């Protein structure tokens, strides 16, 4: 048996996630229209991160995965921020 080791998600949940993603897209566009500068940038990235969280958790099933697979995304994000810190500190002193 080569079945999944996570609990199956219902079709309704997938539809709700889809609706949430479309709604957040709409919000993202509205925020960029109403605001500008740093606030708009931060808001856009935060909204995109919420969308990514929904995709990772429900569509990619990370929410119901077990074991070391659940650590992959947090570790990746930590490494990304370490790299970002190194690059920004390098750029800041040029």
């Amino acid at each position: 048996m080569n079945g999944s080791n996570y609990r199956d998600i219902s079709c309704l949940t997938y539809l709700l996630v889809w609706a949430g993603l479309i709604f957040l897209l709409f919000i993202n566009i509205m925020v960029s229209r109403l605001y500008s500068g740093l606030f708009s940038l931060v808001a856009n990235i935060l909204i995109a991160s919420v969308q990514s969280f929904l995709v990772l958790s429900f569509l990619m099933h990370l929410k119901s995965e077990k074991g070391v697979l659940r650590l992959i995304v947090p570790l990746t994000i930590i490494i990304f921020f370490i790299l970002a810190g190194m690059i920004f500190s390098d750029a800041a002193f040029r």
Partner: protein
Amino acid sequence: MDNISVILDKSHRDYTGSKMGMWLFLVTEFFLFAGPLLLYAVYRYRFHLDFQRGSAGLDMPLAALNTVILITSSLTVSLAIVSVKKGSKRLGIILLGISALLGMFFIMDKYIEWSEEFRRGIYPGSPSLLTRSSGEVIFYGLYFFMTGLHGLHLAGGIVLIKVMILQIIRGKIHETDFVQLENSGLYWHLVDIIWIYLFPLFYLIH
């Protein structure tokens, strides 16, 4: 099972190992885009007005439509996996076909978008683009590189989906063995996540 049967048994599959391998591959794909993303961040900080001007020249409504298309294709891929797991192979094939079709619509829209930009003289190395400010040249360079790279990944994903359709038809993917399909779904969702970030970073700068 005796020793001979174990040696001859070709049906052993490691579901967790397959998933782990796929996730590790996705991490490498993430870092492939993370590099240019960090480059974007540094140059946006340095040339924020030029990036604003560059963004104003892009077709945001078409890109928003593309985002809707990609999000919907992620839904249909997920529903296809559910269908196959429940034994509805025909529905799974139809949903995967819709996903591939949506992917092709995305690429078609991208073609329309880039054609318009090329018509206006905006393409890497164009004489018209080089007369603009450094920041705008960098913006468009990053734009073409990152969206082009994303488009290539999407095209690869479309091919992968079509291969999965064939595998279902051949009976290689079914309700008791579907890890290939799940892994293909993971790849498709990553392509979606990348676009979820590219869209606001390039099209929503105000």
